[in-house]
C-alpha cells in the first residue's frame, strides 16, 4: 500500500473519531443518531459524497468499523450490509435515490424481498405475480412467500411479470413496492426456529407508481442479479453467522453463534477424545479458510481484478454452519435431547441446527450456488433448459405445494 493511501486512512480515522466524539452518546436517542449518521456519510463510507457516503476507498471500511466498535456505536458498514439501499444506488434514477436512499440508510424505512412465490423459488424467473399498466403506474396481483421481515417493512423489492409473451427472463420487472397500502396483505408463517419472521404476502390490486419501477421495464432480471449478488455476499461473510455486528432479534432465524455455542470454548471445557479433537481442528480450518478467502477477495478486488474467491463465501458458510452444529451437538451428548428455556445451551444448539438451513436454502440454495460457481467461475456449460426461448405464457408452471392461511 502506498504511503499516500495510509495517510488518507489515518485522516479518515481522525475524522470519524472526531465525528463520533461529537455525536455518539450511548444513552442518547438512537433514532436521532441514525438521522445524523445518514447525513454524515459515515454509514456507508465508500459511497459517493452526496449519496450518503464519503467517497472513501474500500480499505477505509475497516478503519471506520474499528472506530465505531471502539465506542460501541452501530450503523456503519451499510455499503456492504444494506442491500436495499445498495440496489437503489446501483440502479435507481436520481429521483429514486433522493426518494429512497436517505430513509433506507437512516433506518426510517426497512425493506423486504418480494421474490419467492409458491411456484417460483430457485427458478425466480418463473414468477407469476403480475404488474399491469394502470394510469401512470401499475397494479400488482399475485402471491409472494417466505418474505422475511415483511411486517416491519415499508418497501418491498418486488419481482413481477410485466410481459407474458417473451421468454421468462425477458418479461420481468423490478419494483420498490410501498408496503403500507390496502392491496398488500401480510400473514405470518410460523417457523421451525419459533417465531414467524417470514410471511406470505398477498398482493391484490396493489399500486406501484412510475417512480417505483427500478431499472428498465422488463429489465428486472438484471436488477435482481445485483440484489442477489449483494445478498449472497452478505450471507457468505464472516459476520453473517453470528458474532459480528448483527444482533438478531429473538425471532430471527439466523444463527447467532456458529454452532449455537462457541465450539472452541466448549471443546476446551474438558479433555476430549481423538475424534472430537480432529473434528474441532477441521471445523476451525473451515472457519479460518473462509475468513482468509474473504481477506483475499478484498485484496484482489483492490487490485482491480475480478476475484473468483468472492463468490465462494455463501457455499462455504453453509458448510461451516452445518458442520458446527453437528460438532457442538456431539460434544453436548445426551443433553442435546432437551429444549426450552431451562436448557438454554441445548435449545440454542438445536435452534442453530435449523438455522443452518437459512444459509443452505435462503438466498439461493447450495445447489444453485454450485451451478453458479460451475458456470460463471469455471465456465462449464449450462444444462439444457426446456423453457428457454419459449414465451412464458406457454411454459409449464409450478403450483404451490402447500398453503398457510
Amino acid at each position: 500500500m502506498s504511503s499516500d493511501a495510509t495517510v488518507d486512512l489515518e485522516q479518515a480515522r481522525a475524522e470519524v473519531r472526531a465525528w463520533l466524539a461529537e455525536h455518539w452518546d450511548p444513552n442518547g436517542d438512537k433514532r436521532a443518531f441514525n438521522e445524523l449518521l445518514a447525513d454524515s456519510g459515515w454509514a456507508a463510507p465508500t459511497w459517493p459524497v452526496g449519496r450518503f457516503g464519503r467517497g472513501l476507498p474500500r480499505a477505509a471500511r475497516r478503519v471506520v468499523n474499528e472506530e465505531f466498535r471502539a465506542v460501541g456505536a452501530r450503523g456503519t458498514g451499510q455499503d456492504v450490509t444494506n442491500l436495499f439501499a445498495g440496489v437503489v444506488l446501483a440502479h435507481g434514477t436520481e429521483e429514486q435515490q433522493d426518494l429512497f436512499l436517505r430513509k433506507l440508510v437512516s433506518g426510517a424505512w426497512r425493506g423486504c424481498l418480494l421474490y419467492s412465490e409458491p411456484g417460483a423459488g430457485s427458478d425466480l424467473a418463473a414468477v407469476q405475480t403480475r404488474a399491469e399498466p394502470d394510469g401512470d403506474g401499475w397494479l400488482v396481483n399475485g402471491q409472494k412467500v417466505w418474505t422475511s421481515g415483511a411486517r416491519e417493512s415499508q418497501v418491498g423489492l418486488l419481482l413481477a411479470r410485466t410481459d407474458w409473451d417473451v421468454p421468462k427472463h425477458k418479461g420481468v420487472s423490478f419494483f420498490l413496492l410501498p408496503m403500507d397500502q390496502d392491496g398488500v396483505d401480510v400473514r405470518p408463517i410460523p417457523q421451525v426456529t419459533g417465531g414467524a419472521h417470514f410471511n406470505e404476502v398477498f398482493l391484490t390490486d396493489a399500486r406501484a407508481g412510475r417512480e417505483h419501477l427500478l431499472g428498465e421495464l422488463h429489465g428486472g432480471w438484471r436488477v435482481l442479479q445485483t440484489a442477489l449478488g449483494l445478498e449472497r455476499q452478505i450471507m457468505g461473510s464472516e459476520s453473517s453467522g453470528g458474532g459480528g455486528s448483527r444482533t438478531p432479534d429473538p425471532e430471527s432465524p439466523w444463527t447467532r453463534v456458529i454452532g449455537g455455542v462457541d465450539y472452541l470454548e466448549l471443546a476446551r471445557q474438558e479433555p476430549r477424545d481423538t475424534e472430537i479433537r480432529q473434528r474441532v481442528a477441521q471445523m476451525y480450518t473451515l472457519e479460518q479458510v473462509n475468513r482468509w478467502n474473504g481477506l483475499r477477495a478484498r485484496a484482489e478486488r483492490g487490485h482491480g481484478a475480478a476475484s473468483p474467491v468472492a463468490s465462494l463465501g455463501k457455499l462455504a458458510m453453509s458448510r461451516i454452519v452445518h458442520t458446527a452444529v453437528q460438532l457442538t451437538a456431539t460434544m453436548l451428548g445426551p443433553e442435546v435431547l432437551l429444549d426450552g428455556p431451562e436448557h438454554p445451551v441445548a435449545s440454542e444448539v438445536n435452534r442453530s441446527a435449523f438455522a443452518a438451513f437459512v444459509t443452505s436454502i435462503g438466498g439461493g440454495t447450495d445447489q444453485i450456488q454450485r451451478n453458479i460457481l460451475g458456470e460463471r467461475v469455471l465456465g462449464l456449460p449450462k444444462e439444457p433448459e426446456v423453457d428457454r426461448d419459449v414465451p412464458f405464457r406457454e411454459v409449464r408452471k409450478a403450483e404451490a405445494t402447500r398453503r398457510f392461511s
Partner: protein
Amino acid sequence: MAAFDVTDEQRALHAAAQGFFSEVSSEAAVRAQLGEPAGFDRGAWQRAVHELGLAGLAVPVDLNGSGASWTDAAIVLEEAGRFLYGGPLLSSLMATAVLRECPGPRSDALLARLADGAVVALSWDGGCSVDDGLLSGTTRYVVDGSSAEVLLVLGADDMYAVDLDTAATREPQLAFDRTRKLAVVTLEQSPAVVLDGDLRRAHDLLDVLQAAELLGSAQQALDLAVAYAKERVQFGRAIGSFQAIKHLLADLLLEVESARSAVYYAAAAADEGSDELERVAPLARAYTADVLLQAASDGMQVHGGISFTWEHPAHLYFRRAKAGQQLFGDPRSHRELLAQRLGLREIA
C-alpha cells in the same frame, strides 16, 4: 497481517517460475524420469540453480542466495507442484528453512553450499539416534536421499547435519509417486554436527513449504478436470453440463481456492514472524494434503476410463496426492497438533 498483497516482483516471479517449470517439467520431461528411482534431470537443476537462483531462493544474499521471502518460496513451489517437478527444489527450500532457524557458522556454510546447488535432504522419521556425537540408524523415505550430499536429521528437540559422502548407505526406493525420488538411508556412527535453534518454527516452516507445493498440484488436477469436462461430450452434451460433474467441480473450486488462501496466509505469517504461524502452519499442511487428494481423486472420476491409462497424466497427480498423505507426516497428526495449539486437552 499483510497477507495477499501481491507485489509486481512476485507477479514476475510467478511468471518466471511458471515458464521455467512448464519447460523443464513438461509432461514428457516428467515421464522421462518416471523409471529413474534415484536420479533427476541434472541439466534442468543446474539451470534452476544458476539461471533462476532457485536452490538458494530463500538463502540470505550474503550467503550467495536470492534472499527471497517465504511467500516468494511458496509462489515458486506452487508452480513446481503444478508441473510435478521432481528435482530437489522442495528439499532445498525445506533445508533452507531449517538452517535459517538454526543460525551460526555451520548453518551458514551449509546454506552457501546449498545455494550453489548441493542437494541437502531431510530425515524426518526419527529413525536415527545420536551417541557421542555419532549418528546411527536407518531413516526411511528420505526425499532426494540418493542424490543428497548432506542429510539434516530432524528431531522434535534436536537437529543434526551429516555429510552423506562419508559414512552412509543409501538404497533408492521404487516410490508409488514415481515423480519423487525416495531413499532409505542408513548411518553407522556417522560424524554429525549439532544445529541449535528454533526447531518449532523450523517445523512450522516445513509445513508451509510442503503445503505450497501440494496446492500447485491440486490446482492443476482441478484445471485438467475442468478442461476435460468442457471438451468431453456424452448424451449429446459436454459432461460439464451435468450437475453431478459440475457440482463436484464447484466443490473442488471452493477447496482449492481455500487451500490457496491458507497457504499464502501461512506464508505471510512466516514472513512477518507472527505467532499465528503455530496454528496456521499445521492447518495449511493438513488441509492442502486433503484437498489435493480430493482434487486428484475426483479428477480421475471426471476423466472416466481414460484416467485409468498410463498415458494420461491424471494418475501422476493421484500418486502425488497419495504421497502427500504420508510424506513428512500425515494430515491427522497435523490436525492433532493444531488441536493442541488451540488449547484442547487429551483424555489421560
